């Protein structure tokens, strides 16, 4: 596997691709990488500094932690504070600030908050602790939905009454459509998220490419992958084409992963979702199907309505829409740092602000 990865980190190959991009690119092109994993890879390796100046990379909303509404973080915090609850989550969510508190703060006050690598471990916890309520924070795009669906199916098969999900699942294609439909949109081409496309396949992206006349290229996460995707996008733009071209063919199939898609469809249904920074987007998320309502933490627990408050300084909305870059935020690196984050984009491993902060470019 690692030898495989090394090819995609080869500096020689990367330089050749950069040369080709510079040779082909004539007109200005604004490319959005949807996925936060791409944002981090770009900033870590410095790709954005090596491109010709007419190519601009803007960072998209593909950070599940970042687009989870404050209201849901507040609900998580409320649940985690209950004595009967073991609240479980991917580690990224723990430091995301809610209106007043983060899950990490609840944990330091004695709340039972645990970071896990798999929702199936949360199901095991529920089996081992029949006297406790185990809640898993089901955050993420199409990539984490299959695992969470499996966890629910497993809990149902075991007849567990003490396992539930706090669901905040979102879908990529509706977000792309919402961005393209916005009058403020500047994006002319997309690097599509490689892992998401591995699950979902390419059909929805083909419809967007044709409908909005934008080139779209799903890409892997190594520097050579990203440069190859940029080259494909630039070539399309120069030739006036708008298609889906698959850079990440070692992982993405046109039909996606049918088994994973079936599992998700069996447990979840498409619903409207509010995205932090983007607002409500129709049919842009997943909720549990009525037959799995017993595993829905929002229905199971009486969560009194929560008045969510965002930090007035944080501009993560504009960052998630690709309108602004982190260094343009007056709070960036000053009031807002990974140690004291004002918004989720500074917390997550996929957030644009944390990518810029970790590379410490503001200190050069």
């Amino acid at each position, binding site marked *: *596997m*690692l030898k495989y*990865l090394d090819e995609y*980190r080869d*500096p020689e190959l*990367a*330089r050749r691709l950069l040369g080709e991009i510079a040779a082909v690119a004539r007109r200005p092109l604004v490319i959005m990488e949807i996925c936060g994993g791409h944002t981090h890879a770009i*900033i*870590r*390796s*410095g*790709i954005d*500094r*090596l491109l010709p100046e007419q190519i601009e990379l803007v960072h998209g909303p593909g950070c599940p932690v970042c687009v989870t509404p404050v209201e849901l973080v507040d609900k998580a915090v409320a649940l985690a504070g209950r004595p009967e609850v073991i609240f479980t989550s991917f580690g990224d969510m723990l*430091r995301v600030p809610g209106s007043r508190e983060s899950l*990490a703060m609840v944990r330091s006050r004695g709340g039972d908050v645990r970071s896990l*690598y*798999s929702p199936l*471990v949360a199901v*095991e916890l529920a089996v081992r602790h029949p006297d406790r309520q185990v809640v898993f924070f089901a955050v993420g795009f199409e990539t984490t939905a299959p695992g969470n669906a499996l966890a629910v199916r497993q809990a149902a098969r075991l007849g567990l009454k003490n396992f539930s999900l706090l669901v905040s699942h979102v879908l990529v294609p509706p977000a792309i459509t919402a961005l393209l439909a916005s009058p403020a949109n500047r994006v002319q081409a997309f690097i599509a998220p490689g892992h998401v496309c591995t699950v979902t396949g390419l059909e929805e992206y083909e419809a967007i490419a044709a409908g909005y006349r934008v080139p779209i290229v799903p890409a892997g996460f190594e*520097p050579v992958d990203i440069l190859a995707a940029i080259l494909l996008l630039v070539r399309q733009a120069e030739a006036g084409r708008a298609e889906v071209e698959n850079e990440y063919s070692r992982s993405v199939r046109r039909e996606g992963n049918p088994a994973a898609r079936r599992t998700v469809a069996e447990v979840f249904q498409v619903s409207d979702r509010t995205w932090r920074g983007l607002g409500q987007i129709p049919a842009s998320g997943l909720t549990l199907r009525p037959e799995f309502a017993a595993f829905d933490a929002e229905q199971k627990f009486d969560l009194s309505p929560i008045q969510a408050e965002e930090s007035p300084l944080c501009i993560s909305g504009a960052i998630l829409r690709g309108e602004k870059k982190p260094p343009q935020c007056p709070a960036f690196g000053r009031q807002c*740092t*990974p*140690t004291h984050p004002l918004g989720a984009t500074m917390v997550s*491993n996929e957030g644009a602000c944390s990518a810029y902060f*970790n*590379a*410490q*470019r503001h*200190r*050069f």
Partner: protein
Amino acid sequence: MSLSIKPEDFTCPLPQDNSETVQLAHGGGSRLAAELIEKMLVPAFADPVLARLEDQAVLNPELAAGERLAFTTDSFVVDPLFFPGGSIGELAINGTVNDLAMGGARPLYLSTALIIEEGLPLEWLRRVVAAMSAAAAAARVRVVTGDTKVVGRGACDKLFINTSGIGVVPSGIELSAANLRPGDQIIISGTMADHGMAIMSCRQGLSFVEALRSDTAALDGLVAVILAAAGMGGRESGGPSGALRAMRDPTRGGVAAVLSEMARASGVGVVIAEESLPVADPVRGACEILGIDPLFVANEGKLLAVVAPEAATPVLNAMRAHPLGRQAVIIGEVRAANPGLVALRTLLGPHRIIDLPAGELLPRIC
């Protein structure tokens, strides 16, 4: 290399529980306590000063003119107690030996204090003490005094160990993180992140085709070799301007934390090259899967040495001839620009700054 995450394959070598456990009575003045000390601890360390069982160790080290004492302490709370490549026992000895050695000191004496949670299987304690004894013998350091406390269930987690150490710094050796100068070369003694990732995979129940092993080791022997190669093995060897400027073992916070401390203490910039950073393949795989940068992960048997440019080749060659330095390599150099900052030159060429991580990376790894 193929990787898989299968909690059911969890292979951390936890010893079998048997009914014999540590009781509160093992801690305080009773016959049980005396038995624990006299039957297990004293024989394990086999030291005449310890065997006297006085309240203090009375020592008479022979110091030559200009030699000074180095004194350090560290506490070990790693969870799990046993992991591939070692246990809390080796860590507790090697960690303190290494802290002495990084100052150029020859380790002489250690103290060891055990804080044991009631209910710990006695067999586990025996294994830890045996590991400490073997590690101390390997590092040729004497355990001359100790203490044992037993606390109630929940008052600590299984077993905590504190060790303090005394060593002798030869005349003329003044190593310090504040000694770095532009042009100095930065050498690492081997691969990064082995210990931290071994603990992480154990804690998370990740299993890999090749098991990740901690690199815990005492570095005093390697340090002696480095000092000699830098021309600082004898008497009156150069003070702060000796060819060897500083050494640190990159434990918690990893290589990034050590370089960052050195850059700040010396008011210099440090530039390291991404392609030169040594990471073993299985460790790199685990880091990829967990999204962790090996630069920030703990090591327990590696050191960073900063040397004057003219000493870089002899020191590197000497290190490579030592079993703990076979994979030693130059990873970067000291610059005058960007004082206080560590920059990494990426594979593609641009630089990014390496800073300390914001929050917890791996809980209780040492």
